[in-house]
């Protein structure tokens, strides 16, 4: 059906385990080779951990699903070596327009802040992202064993391992792993197998997605309509993707018959009404969906960890699904590594649930709020919604109240038990629990970026004076010292401003580039205590 994309078909290969009927205990098995599972595999490999990835299919995401990728996941993918490819293939956009009934209500420009390597947001079809991830995974086949057509059919959890029954075209065989990461999507089988609860709110509404190819002169902007004349009492969205593919999204209401409304003879007139009769387009993909906002009760079930849609499902408004899933992996892998190496207690992994459930709840809240604005649940809320939109045409104050999706930004782990609370005063948003903001640097005469310079382990980012040490150690865990003006320079002064380092500062930064603690002076004892706290050892 697709005119612009041909799905790769990856070949099924019978594994040695199955052929020889041997059971090799694997350190980590990832279930699901989607955006999240593949990212998990790459991040584990980066940490030197061998991993087997099982997927019941043999290709990338079918149809168009995730579209928008935000700065933070791009930063994580940059560490995995694939962000450049995504940005090159993707579409960058800054201008959004909001329409109400027949009028343009207002427009906004995201005006991305200078001094970041990654853009604020790109649009790209999910299948491209997955294809790039697979290409990268194949480069690391010394550590990543990616197996297609391997379907998990049951599992048994033991004290220190999990055993799995896996079905392939050659039949069923048994595998074992120390740790499992379940990235098997919103309908996660693993979640059912461990009998986890997955509760939240279902929305009684249906949305129709149409991806169309058109060479029209539509600007690269995000257009959102509330109650447009071409689709009365509903909402509609137009967003550009790669290859002249445009994502159209029509709210259809709960009564819409999924079979009827997705027929081309019903979809095409609706699109013509939106784009104008004389716009040439080809229909590439049509599907209808309804959604829920819900999350798993615990991201950790013993030695099974849940990530991505398997752990939380949000409405599509705000692009919070894939974006937050990638951040789950960012949070999980370094913790798992420390536990696997015996450097942190197993209970340390509870902090994965603590931090990512907190982020999921924040995403669910934002997502639910957007949904309530886009599809008001009562007459009263519809009246207020329309009043906001009407006022937004004339008055600037009403525009921040308009909610057609709050674009995904990372949730700082402000209450995390891994943080050491501030005791010194800082004029900077880099509070403990916050992801490090990027900044331009100059290292060995070459221009670069702070986030690329930070290491894979703990880092002590020092502004000003520091004792002559290269690292601070707590047992086998060490934090490498990086002093501004020594390892690299802050020529533009942007980093010093963003971290409020002008009068001296010491930041203890976690392997996932989140601030664990910060002080005005370099105090080894305090650093060691903060390291212990950040690795669950107190």
């Amino acid at each position, binding site marked *: 059906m697709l005119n612009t994309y041909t799905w790769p078909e990856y070949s099924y290969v019978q594994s040695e385990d199955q052929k020889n009927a041997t059971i090799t205990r694997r350190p980590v098995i990832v279930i699901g080779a989607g955006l999240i599972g593949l990212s998990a595999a790459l991040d584990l490999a980066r940490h030197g951990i061998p991993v087997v990835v099982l997927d019941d299919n043999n290709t990338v995401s079918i149809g168009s699903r995730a579209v928008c990728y935000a700065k933070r996941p791009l930063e994580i993918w940059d560490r995995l070596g694939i962000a450049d490819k995504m940005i090159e293939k993707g579409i960058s956009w800054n201008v959004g327009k909001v329409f109400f009934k027949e009028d343009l209500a207002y427009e906004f420009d995201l005006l991305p802040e200078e001094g970041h390597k990654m853009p604020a947001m790109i649009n790209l079809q999910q299948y491209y992202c997955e294809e790039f991830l697979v290409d990268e995974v194949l480069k690391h086949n010394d550590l990543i064993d990616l197996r297609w057509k391997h379907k998990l059919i049951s599992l048994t959890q033991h004290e220190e391992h999990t055993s799995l029954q896996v079905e392939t075209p050659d039949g069923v065989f048994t595998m074992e792993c120390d740790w499992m990461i379940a990235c098997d999507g919103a309908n996660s089988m693993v979640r059912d197998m461990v009998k986890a609860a997955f509760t939240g709110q279902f929305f009684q509404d249906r949305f129709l997605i149409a991806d169309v190819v058109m060479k029209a002169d539509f600007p690269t902007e995000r257009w959102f309509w509330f109650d447009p004349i071409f689709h009365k009492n509903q909402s509609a969205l137009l967003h550009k993707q790669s290859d002249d593919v445009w994502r159209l999204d029509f709210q259809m209401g709960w009564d819409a018959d999924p079979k009827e409304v997705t027929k081309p003879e019903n979809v095409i007139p609706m699109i013509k009404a939106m784009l104008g009769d004389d716009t040439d387009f080809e229909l590439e993909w049509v599907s209808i969906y309804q959604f829920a906002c819900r999350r798993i009760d615990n991201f950790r079930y013993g030695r099974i960890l849940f990530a991505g849609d398997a752990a939380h499902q949000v409405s599509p408004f705000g692009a919070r699904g894939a974006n937050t899933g990638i951040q789950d992996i960012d949070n999980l892998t370094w913790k798992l590594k420390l536990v696997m190496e015996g450097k942190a207690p197993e209970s340390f992994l509870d902090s994965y649930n603590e931090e990512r459930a907190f982020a999921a709840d924040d995403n669910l809240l934002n997502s639910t709020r957007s949904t309530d604005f886009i599809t008001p649940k009562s007459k009263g809320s519809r*009246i*207020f919604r*329309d*009043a*906001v939109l*009407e*006022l937004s045409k004339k*008055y600037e*104050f*009403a525009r921040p*109240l308009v909610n057609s999706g709050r674009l995904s930004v990372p949730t700082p782990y402000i209450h995390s038990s891994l943080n050491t609370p501030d005791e010194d005063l800082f004029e900077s948003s880099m509070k403990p629990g916050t992801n490090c903001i990027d900044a331009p640097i100059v290292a060995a005469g070459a221009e670069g970026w702070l986030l690329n310079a930070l290491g894979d382990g703990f880092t002590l980012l020092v502004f000003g004076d520091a004792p002559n040490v290269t690292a601070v150690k707590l047992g086998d865990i060490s934090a490498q010292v990086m002093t501004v003006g020594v390892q690299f320079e802050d020529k533009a002064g942007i980093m010093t401003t963003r971290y409020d380092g002008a009068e001296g500062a010491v930041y203890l930064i976690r392997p996932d580039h989140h601030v664990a603690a910060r002080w005005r002076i370099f105090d080894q004892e305090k650093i060691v205590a903060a390291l212990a706290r950040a690795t669950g050892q107190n």
Partner: protein
Amino acid sequence: MALNLKRNIARPDDFYQELIDMQRDMNEADVQAMNAKLILILSNHIGDQEILSEAMSLVRPAGHGRT
């Protein structure tokens, strides 16, 4: 600053008449839309979330919405 529930409108009769006159001869839907806009405009003028929350809690029936 707390929500002011003391007299604050200099000419109460004039204000009240203007408020009522505004809605005269309008249908129910238009009145509701207009009142919603008025609430939004005045809320923005007040701005302070605590005061807005306090005002909402005064008129919210028991057991409705957030407490």
